[in-house]
């Protein structure tokens, strides 16, 4: 048995998105570094404001998730944040987020790191915490202000955003979690050394040996072990480093555009790294109907992939409107040029 399945069934009782207001067009980045008319991997990406970071964005997503869950923050027993852009090298983001949302002191607070799948990693750990009976509620967040070296191909897509999920017992859930499968190998596709500001990537390793191999194996094993097939799911969401990769893997597995379109946000907001699958899920929850089945597969460089499926319950209907929809954050946008972008991201040395 390769699936991870808790003793007690676990579900998602609240979810909340966050995307910063600012956007830069990929064509504007191309203009600065390559002249005009270069083909770009996405249309535009979200940019964090100068006073935003993974902690502030996590606080807003967590407040949204708690509003939908309808539980006071002091009932949480864990506050876990998955990110590759924790503001501190040493001092857990979870401590500040927990304090800001009003969590109790009797909690576990930890920061997860697994490149772009740190958010689903926190969900998987949370399923264990709740499913073992150790905790009634866990807050799992995937959030990033992704870094891309100026002029590097990653700069087109590295963006900011994410979502928070409150896990709890299935009788309160707006979506029940069926099971999880996690697939991990040692793959040198992308990394950032401790004191480096920007990540490195080994070019062609990003595609076949990393993204496609890991999501492919994780997804195939999950489908085999659960005896399900692509057409059993109403929606599917994949990690989305650009617009092309998730659509390619979807087609390889026989998923249709109707299944993946709702969760594919990268063309409009870029690659939110640890936030990507989480935000895609949040966008799906915003429109799904009771009984719908959802399949999610994350990918984190290094590398690994978590696949899990969920079934929507009728509780979604009364909770959806209790916090801003994902689309509200996507629609709230102000476009900035490269100069303002460089200022926001602290690329201009003033002293």
């Amino acid at each position, binding site marked *: 048995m390769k699936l991870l399945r808790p003793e007690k069934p676990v579900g998602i009782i609240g979810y909340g998105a966050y995307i910063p207001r600012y956007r830069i067009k990929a064509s504007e980045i191309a203009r600065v570094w390559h002249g005009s008319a270069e083909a770009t991997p996405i249309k535009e990406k979200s940019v964090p404001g100068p006073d935003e970071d993974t902690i502030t964005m996590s606080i807003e997503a967590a407040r949204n998730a708690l509003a939908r869950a309808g539980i006071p923050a002091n009932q949480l027993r864990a506050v876990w944040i998955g990110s590759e852009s924790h503001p501190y090298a040493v001092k857990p983001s979870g401590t500040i987020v927990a304090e*800001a949302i009003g969590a109790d002191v009797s909690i576990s607070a930890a920061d997860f790191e697994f490149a772009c799948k740190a958010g689903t990693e926190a969900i998987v750990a949370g399923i264990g915490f709740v499913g073992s009976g150790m905790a009634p509620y866990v807050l799992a967040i995937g959030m990033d202000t992704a870094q891309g070296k100026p002029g590097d191909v990653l700069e087109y897509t590295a963006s900011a955003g994410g979502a928070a999920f409150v896990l709890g017992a299935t009788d309160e859930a707006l979506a029940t979690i069926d099971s999880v499968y996690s697939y991990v190998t040692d793959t040198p596709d992308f990394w950032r050394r401790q004191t480096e500001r920007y990540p490195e990537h080994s070019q062609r390793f990003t595609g076949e040996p990393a993204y496609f191999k890991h999501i492919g194996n994780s997804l195939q094993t999950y489908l085999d072990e659960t005896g399900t097939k692509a057409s059993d799911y109403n929606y599917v969401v994949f990690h989305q480093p650009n617009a092309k990769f998730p659509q390619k893997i979807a087609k390889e597995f026989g998923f249709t555009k109707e299944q993946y379109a709702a969760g594919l946000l990268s063309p409009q907001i870029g690659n939110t790294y640890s936030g990507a699958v989480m935000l895609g899920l949040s966008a799906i929850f915003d429109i799904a109907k009771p009984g719908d089945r959802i399949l999610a597969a994350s990918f984190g460089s290094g590398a690994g992939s978590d696949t899990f499926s969920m079934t929507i319950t009728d509780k979604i209907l009364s909770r959806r409107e209790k916090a801003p929809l994902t689309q509200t954050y996507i629609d709230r946008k102000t476009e900035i040029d490269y100069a303002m972008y460089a200022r926001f991201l602290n690329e201009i040395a003033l002293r």
Partner: protein
Amino acid sequence: METPRHWRLKKQRYALIGEECPHCSAKIFPPRDVCPECGLEAKTAYQFSGKGEVFSYTTMNDAPAGFQDHTPYSIALVKLEEGPIVTAQLTDLGDEKIRIGMPVEMVTRKLRNDGDERGAILYGYKFRPVL
């Protein structure tokens, strides 16, 4: 660095937690343990909704130490739904023009570094146009 002061103020700064007077029900911010309305002791914690409107505002072009990197930025007197008026930065304005009476909501943001970039990051309330 002023670690003790910032540590002491974190609850009110992160989440707009003030006090409610048990005698006259006035809502108090910042918390001061004595009710400014009736003068009696008031120590009951109260979570403000974070909703309010711009009472007045100004734009900072010449900022105090720690805030220079963000000029120009706007500071407002925000009248909270529950009554008190707080001074705070406005954020996420985008292209929106500020006006007196503009509905705003509280968000928790980075205020500044404690000292330079080696110091702790100080977080606290700001207000933005209602989403």
